[in-house]
């Protein structure tokens, strides 16, 4: 079973920290866009690919009307089956009302992901969000009221004036809402964003502070029953994101829309970040980012993001028993410094290990290759 990702490249306003592709929303553009997404899905009609997740990411997918979402879901269902599918839509608390939420539900959406970011109005302003705490609370409660039972919230760590107290307050506030999944990620100043300046850099948490905030947030979330399953993701039991797990478990997915990535048929490719071109092209243009994937490397690279870690048996299959042995040896070194845990057949990273996972992953990949 594959996953389907639809990138909705429209926003009412660009958030100053965001580096994902988006353009200002306009009604006529969005109609042409929906048309193009459906047209591209149609190409797979006779291919026989079955999907069990559909994810609307962005941008701000909730700027689309319920009918537009309905059209895409309908096409997707016809082409890819979507049997017992998880259908997620990222939503901005400002862009939803009761009617719209009901519409999404009728269109088939069964999971919402709200970009709440913080329960503190000062930080929300700093982050350039259009909503305040009350709007976010109302939006989530409304979603629950109209029948959504699988709701996720995003939490941004380390923005202006953040300390462990404010983080705890935000976590507590989110946990008081009818949420069963929380993505908590550390604010990163991305190149080319409005935040990419010293003034902002000096205001947000530095690396050491950020690490402390991350550890605090993770503990606090687990105390509320949100168990960590990926570097930045926490869920109540049974509510992990099935779609996002596909990325980390090296499963296949097809992406539609400008800047959407695909991993299909052993290749990784993406559609250029150009909404006009996407709309005007009969078939969405694709740039191959990887012709043939190194599945061993990817397994380690992505698998170590997950709290269940990687299996040594699998490493043996992908490489060799010697490679697995060498990886184990290197992992034990990290274990002795509290950065990894080595079990019977598995290697996984601790939270401190996640924080330096780039280096550890490079080391472990080096270990299997040498």
């Amino acid at each position: 079973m594959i996953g389907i990702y639809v990138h909705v490249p429209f926003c009412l306003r660009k958030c100053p920290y965001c580096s994902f592709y988006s353009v200002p929303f306009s009604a006529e553009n969005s109609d042409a866009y929906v048309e193009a997404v459906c047209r591209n899905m149609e190409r797979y009609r006779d291919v026989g690919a079955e999907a069990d997740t559909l994810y609307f990411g962005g941008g701000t997918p909730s700027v689309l009307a319920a009918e537009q979402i309905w059209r895409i879901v309908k096409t997707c269902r016809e082409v890819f089956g979507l049997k017992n599918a998880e259908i997620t839509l990222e939503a901005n608390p400002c862009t939803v009302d009761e009617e719209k939420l009901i519409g999404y539900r009728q269109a088939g959406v069964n999971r919402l992901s709200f970009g709440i970011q913080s329960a503190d109005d000062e930080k929300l302003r700093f982050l350039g969000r259009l909503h305040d705490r009350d709007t976010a609370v109302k939006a989530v409660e409304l979603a629950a009221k109209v029948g959504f039972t699988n709701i996720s919230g995003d939490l941004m760590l380390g923005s202006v004036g953040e300390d462990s107290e404010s983080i705890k307050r935000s976590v507590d506030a989110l946990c008081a809402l009818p949420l069963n999944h929380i993505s908590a990620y550390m604010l990163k100043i991305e190149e080319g964003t409005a935040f990419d300046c010293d003034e902002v850099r000096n205001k947000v948490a530095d690396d050491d502070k950020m690490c402390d905030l991350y550890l605090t947030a993770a503990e606090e979330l687990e105390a509320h029953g949100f168990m960590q399953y990926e570097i930045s993701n926490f869920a109540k039991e049974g509510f992990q994101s099935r779609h996002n797990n596909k990325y980390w478990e090296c499963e296949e997915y097809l992406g539609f829309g400008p800047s959407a990535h695909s991993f299909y048929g052993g290749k990784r490719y993406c559609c250029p970040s150009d909404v006009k071109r996407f709309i005007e092209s009969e078939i969405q243009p694709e740039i191959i980012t990887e012709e043939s994937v190194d599945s061993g490397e990817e397994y380690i690279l992505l698998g170590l993001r997950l709290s269940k870690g990687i299996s040594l048996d699998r490493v043996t299959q992908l490489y060799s028993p010697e490679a697995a042995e060498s990886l184990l040896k290197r992992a034990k070194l990290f274990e002795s410094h509290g950065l990894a845990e080595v079990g019977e057949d598995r290697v996984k990273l601790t939270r401190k290990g996640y924080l330096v996972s780039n280096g550890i992953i490079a080391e472990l990949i080096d270990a299997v290759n040498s």
Partner: protein
Amino acid sequence: MTPKDKIRNFCIIAHIDHGKSTLADRILELTETVELREMEDQLLDNMDIERERGITIKARAVRLTYHADDGEDYYFNLIDTPGHVDFNYEVSRSLAACEGAVLIVDASQGIEAQTLANTYLAIEHDLEVLPVINKIDLPSADPERACNEVENVIGIPAMDAPRISAKMGTNIKEVLERIVTDIPAPKGDDDAPLKALIFDSYYDQYKGVIIYVRVKEGHIKAGDTIRLMAAQAEFQTVEVGYMGAKDLVPVGELHAGEVGYITASIKDIGDTRVGDTVTNAERPCDESLPGYKKVNPMVFSGIYPADGAKYGDLRDALEKLMLNDASLSFEPETSIALGFGFRCGFLGLLHMEIIQERLEREYNLDLITTAPSVIYKVTLTSGEVKYIDNPTNYPDPGTVASAEEPVVNAHIYTPSEFVGNIMELCQDRRGTFVDMQYIDENRVDLHYVLPLNEIVYDFFDALKSRTRGYASFDYELKGYAPSKLVKLDVLLNGEIVDALSFIVHEEKAYARGRRLTEKLKENIPRQMFEVPVQAAIGGKIIARETIKALRKDVLAKCYGGDITRKKKLLEKQKEGKKRMRQLGTVAVPQEAFMSVLKLDD
């Protein structure tokens, strides 16, 4: 055959940057030895490094024809000499090939350390010294003062010295005329047994070693069997001739008084030592020319390829350099930290720098070099005497009865305002003050005895920075002096890094250890766990720094199926790792090894 009274053999001596090569160029130009269109600035210096640094590394010679004011043609043999103390011996042999020396003094700077050192050498060799005041075009030029200095300090008449600008070409002809009138013609008996002095040699791919000689007595022609007296080797001469500006020009015979070259299918440059005497094997001379000595390296350093796979390339490159440089020595060495490399011996610091630079530039190698070392003389309790050029081989302190280190006589020429700074520096470098002389009211010559191991480090940089670049410096080996030496080890994460060990005076060990650990801390990036950096003598830790653990290096967001960034990061990490040396569990960048070579900020 060239009439002896029309020959003038001379060299040009000067402090670095006083315009030696520029004057040589002007002379070449004026004698039309080189056509103007072929002129390239500083023709005699044909290595890139020489041209860039404005120094001469190898001696070189050229023959020029000058049509003098008296209507006669004169044959000039201009021998260019290296201007640096490292090559003192080569300089002395070049001087021995001449009857005269043109001494260039910078009109604005006056006499500097090498001016004096080289002039004394020239006087020692009974050369006629012809002073020339250069750079009179500079606004700061004070030719009057420079002439006074020459008279007062060196004690040779200079008031009528030509005042020139080699750069602008001013008064060059006057210099040429003075060479004709002031520098004596060579003497020598053409019919005596051959006696020729080797003052340079280099390897040519096609002809084998080409020897530059000054024929003192007798004559030589192609087909003669020659004997190199010190090397005790015989060869059949293939070709003799003189050095044109661009090419070698074969001639039938070379006679007493002439400067020229010999080829004899010699394969090993080690056979043609500078200073050796060439004679005719069938009709040898009674005794060789005086002054020959085998030069020995004074400074040693480990040279390793940054990329271990380039070991073979490094060896090939060193072998090629050695073809042209008999004073370079090297032998394989293995370091636990750096892998396979070579222990190389150099005449001095500049020589070391030049070799390293040539390896990097001409052979495109990335190098890691260890701290330079000198040869220590260690007497063991057993009575055995050992010479140690590699800290790794330093004997166990328990077995050392006494230790000695090489010391040098150092002269520092400086504007008097910096005397305090320099004395402080020399004091700090364990120097012993000998005396101080005023060259004029503003400048002094400071004479110190300094341990060589204190100047191989970063003395020159320290001197320059404390005198805003105004001081000049010259030294010669004095001998060995008793010393309290210890071996200082550096430990990373508890393990000794052999490549960072060095020998140091007991009193300086603590300060050096502290500075070294600080430097390493600055230059080793944070690792995934805390790494202690320690300095130790024997088993005793004397300094410690801690490289804190890296806390954050993570791509927190990995959504939308875009893992290209993750992959890019991984590639970056892999790339970075290549430039690192893995020492146990610690990854050490090349820069960290280099940073310990310059501890003085």
